[in-house]
């Protein structure tokens, strides 16, 4: 059985790789990542391995996608003058293809092997407009997006094109604060608050638009080595609409964690227990202010829309250690979600009720990097407020999640990753179920911007056919992550 599965994987990988290669028609001269091209840099200068950022990459992001202390004078105007409009345009664009080529999933009653097309094609438009203002826009095409149809009231699979995970501008506010009296320093074309040798602040930077305020946290949820798996919806024979068959494997620490909640009332869209909320969302309208203070403390505050409510949050990262190839930082997060979810109807739990709930989220995270080792984890607790009295005996208002990941660069071109996700779920007591998943991945980078990966996730809890969180035992994916 195992040999057959491995043989099938090998054949599938070969065919799929050749097919993708041939169909996309890659030519080296045309495949160039935007930032790498803008700055004539190798991917690995900013990424431990794409897509995860290293410390320089974090700094690059924090400075508004510019080489720290070396913002181009006049921004895009300077670029057009120096490089011409066409090159400036091309240098601002990048494409990412990510997803599976092949999937093998196993449960006690069903084993499935199938080819899986890449599930995301993303076009990025990114770059500085002025030394103080940058733009980042992600357009996304999903050939098999699973979406909740608000018109029809159920999940369905359809292709989708639109604004992707994030689309925002980032503004360095040093100049503005200087105008109202703050001491400032000119650092490589950007205006920073502070005084040389005294208090310094890189930024503050304002990130506004459709954002996910995660990059500067110790456990940065974006750019994970282990991608989230896909939500699966199935239609029973004779049924008009699909049911959620399998929930994705995501960093549970940042998942919504509660069973039985709804995003809204009229459409009745459920808030799935694995939906990423606040952090690691698919982006939501909001504004985020962050600043690095005295090169050791990263402060972040902001507000972010979620469903029909909104979040106010603050995060603090303290870089405790930076010595001899060893760095260590810890982060704390505090978030209050005002009316961000809707409770179930007290009488009929399958329908949304009339009450919107507030959510308190708090937690800690840490990241240690030592030589080729990168360890990071987060423990996040959620608690709901405002639950109707009739539901109190049926509903658990507390939940927690733990995610711990280890990446190890075993060879220049091979990154091994392992992650444990633990969910202590809350929500309706007759539905809620904890979950523990361990995932392993080997990612091979023949080039710095193209990777093939084999990833296996194992459900360590008891199989439970009726619960999509645990309706599987093992999932194996072979996929591609391709940036150009």
């Amino acid at each position: 059985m195992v040999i057959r599965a491995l043989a099938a994987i090998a054949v599938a990988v070969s065919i799929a790789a050749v097919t993708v290669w041939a169909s996309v028609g890659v030519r080296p001269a045309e495949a160039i990542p935007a930032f790498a091209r803008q700055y004539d840099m190798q991917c690995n200068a900013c990424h431990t391995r794409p897509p995860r950022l290293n410390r320089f990459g974090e700094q690059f992001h924090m400075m508004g996608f510019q080489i720290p202390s070396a913002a181009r004078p006049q921004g895009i105007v300077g670029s057009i003058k120096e490089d011409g409009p066409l090159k400036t345009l091309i240098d601002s664009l990048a494409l990412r293809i990510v997803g599976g080529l092949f999937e093998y999933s196993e449960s006690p009653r069903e084993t499935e092997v199938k080819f899986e097309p890449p599930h995301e094609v993303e076009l990025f438009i990114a770059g500085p407009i002025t030394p103080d203002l940058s733009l980042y826009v992600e357009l996304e095409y999903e050939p098999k997006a699973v979406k909740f149809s608000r018109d029809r009231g159920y999940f369905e699979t359809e292709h989708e094109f639109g604004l992707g995970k994030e689309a925002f501008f980032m503004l360095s506010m040093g100049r503005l604060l200087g105008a109202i009296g703050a001491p400032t320093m000119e650092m490589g074309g950007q205006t920073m608050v502070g005084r040389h040798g005294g208090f310094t602040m890189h930024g503050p930077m304002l990130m506004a638009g459709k954002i996910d305020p995660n990059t500067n946290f110790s456990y940065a949820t974006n750019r994970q080595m282990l991608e989230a798996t896909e939500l699966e919806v199935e239609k029973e024979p004779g049924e008009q609409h699909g049911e959620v068959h399998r929930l994705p494997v995501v960093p549970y620490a940042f998942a919504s964690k509660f069973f039985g909640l709804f995003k809204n009332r009229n459409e009745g869209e459920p808030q799935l227990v694995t939906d990423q909320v606040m952090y690691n969302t698919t982006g939501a309208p909001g504004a985020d202010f962050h600043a690095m203070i005295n090169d050791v403390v990263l402060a972040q505050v902001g507000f972010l829309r979620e469903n029909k409510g909104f979040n106010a949050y603050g995060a603090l990262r303290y870089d405790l250690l930076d010595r001899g190839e060893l760095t260590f930082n810890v982060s704390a997060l505090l978030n209050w979600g005002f009316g961000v979810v809707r409770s179930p109807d007290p009488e009929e739990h399958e329908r949304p009720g009339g009450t919107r709930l507030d959510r308190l989220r708090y937690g800690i995270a840490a990241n240690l990097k030592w030589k080729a080792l990168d360890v990071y984890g987060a423990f996040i607790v959620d608690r709901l407020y405002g639950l109707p009295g009739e539901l109190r005996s049926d509903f658990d208002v507390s939940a927690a999640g733990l995610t711990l990941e280890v990446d190890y660069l075993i060879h220049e071109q091979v990154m091994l990753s392992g992650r444990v996700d633990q969910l202590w779920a809350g929500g309706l007591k007759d539905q809620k179920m904890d979950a523990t998943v361990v995932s392993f991945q080997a990612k091979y980078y023949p080039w710095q911007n193209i990777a093939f990966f084999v990833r296996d996730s194992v459900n360590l809890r008891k199989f439970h056919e009726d619960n999509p969180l645990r309706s599987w035992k093992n999932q194996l994916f072979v996929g591609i992550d391709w940036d150009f």
Partner: protein
Amino acid sequence: MRTKPFACLTIAVGVLLLGLWIAQPPATRANGEKDDEKGGHAHVPAPFEYADAHMPLSLWTDQATIARGKEIYAVRCAVCHGDTGDGKGPAGVALPLKPSDFRDKAGVAEMRDNYWIWRVSEGGQVEPFKGKGSAMPPWKGELSVQDRWAVMAYQHTFSGHQGPHVPWEHPESVIVGRDIYAMACVACHGVEGRGDGSVGPTLSPRRAPQPRDFTTGEFKFRSTPSGQLPTTADLFRTVTEGVRSSGGAMTIGLRGHRIMPSFRHMPEEQRLEVIEYVKSLNRAFWERQEIKTVNVPAPPPVTAERLARGKQLYADAGCLACHGERGRGDGPSAPTLKDSRELPIAATDLTKPDRFKNGARPEDIYRTLVTGLAGTPMPSYADSLEPDQAWDLAYYTLSLSNNRRRTAETMR
């Protein structure tokens, strides 16, 4: 209902920021206030011709030197700077740019020695001091370097500081550079400049190149002879151009392959500030007696004969042992090459000049041949090649490029 305040707040913040941004309120200049506080004596970086002029450490406290400086000071400086160094000499009172007060401990501490010798040598004849109306005479024509150092040693005594006037005694003199370093360099080069930042081990794991350790004397890209420290201009060139990678997995389609970014957009003054900080991490920059740079003569014309001679030299000098017969970095010795840290190192693929770490212009290749690349198996051919032969070899190296058109333009 709850979304309305959110939307209103977003719009209000957006409009406010847009308005402020369009208005472009002026920002204060780096050290701008300091310049005013010090009567126009902000300590800008010394130009290249003075940047490496570091005063020998022993002279700052050498009593004979100080005595000699006192004599010169009394005759030439006291009239403006005052007998006690307070900047209130009789001739200085009416000057538009007031003479420096050497008793100002903080002001003197911020002043680097190469700035000091530059000021003494050039006086008020150079910018930015000329524009401020400085009346300071240039002393380089009248005083020897030893005498100028002697004056500086005596002026230094007014500040009350005991010991040599160097950055590790006065960290405030390189504080601007330190802040830039913390922001832009520390991720790779580490807090103490030992090349042990967290990025290096994943950039090219367990092989060369690794980020430079500034505390050792090993610098690859120099215009100085083998075994010597680079000049400030060499460091400036590296910071400006960045460093390209010549080995390991590449990024498909990327044209330049820099592993160290180009900081060419950083203002020149700040690039010099960060270089002064980097130099302060290595005392050898203050201990070297004399700086020699290799002479790169004007490139001669390229001829078929020159290329033929270069091809012969390529074989005779043993280049093909590492770089291979066709220059692809696949010579018989290539798999065994190691750098001074015993890390495997790739022989440069000479067919791809856009990946040459030390530059791909003919004069860059000439310089590389003559200086070698410290810490790598690439030796200096200064003793074994005549200048004309070095040009032959440089041109032949470029002729191995797989981009003939661009190479022809480069050699033209």
